[in-house]
């Protein structure tokens, strides 16, 4: 599964994208975020307040309870500030 990071989430993680196969038992976006936060200092910093970070699966906004099974691409980013 391709994982992409944007804006300050990208800066804190230290990369724009990577391929990750989440371990079994990780079924929702929220589970995945908690697991990612345990991967290292940058990840912990990026996801220190998981309620702030937004997520998208296959280019659609999703909530933390969304299931990740079958996702090709999952993205994490701050609240949007376009327009």
């Amino acid at each position, binding site marked *: 599964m391709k994982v992409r990071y944007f804006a300050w989430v990208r800066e804190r993680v230290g990369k724009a994208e990577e391929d990750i196969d989440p371990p079994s038992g990780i079924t929702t976006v929220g589970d995945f975020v908690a697991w990612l936060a345990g991967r290292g200092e940058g990840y912990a910093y990026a996801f220190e307040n998981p309620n702030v970070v937004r997520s998208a699966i296959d*280019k659609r906004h999703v909530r933390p309870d969304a299931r990740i099974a079958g996702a090709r691409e999952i*993205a994490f980013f701050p609240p949007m500030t376009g*327009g």
Partner: protein
Amino acid sequence: MSVTIRLQRKPFDTADEVAALTHGRTDIGAVVTFIGICRADENGEPIAALNLEHYPEMAEAEIGRHVEAARQRWPLLGVTVIHRYGRIAPGESIVLVVTASSHREAAFASAEFLMDYLKTRAPFWKQVEKASKAGDKSWVEAKSRDNSAAERWDSR
């Protein structure tokens, strides 16, 4: 309905976009344009520029979904949305929304609807380059009033 959605680095020409949307048509009675412009200050501090980061594939899809939602709410004849990314200096345009309909009510309302959703749902992030210290950058924080502006459409 003619729909144009473009994400681009270069500036846009509003008059050209309106002309492209209305050319050869006699059913359009109202066109509303909204242009978002980069100010020279953010939270009272002078800025040198904005840097806009985006998630290209999702931005296009997300804007498309909101244009479709607008089309279902109002009798629209055309919509153009252009959103720039990259470095944008104060005074330069950032975003253009053009809506066309037979009458003004739909054109005004849908332009506002699209902008409210663009601000909170389209995956763009503004980073400020401060004017005071060279190279000093900070991410613009989302404003709760923008969320309220988008949410008010949910109850209408």
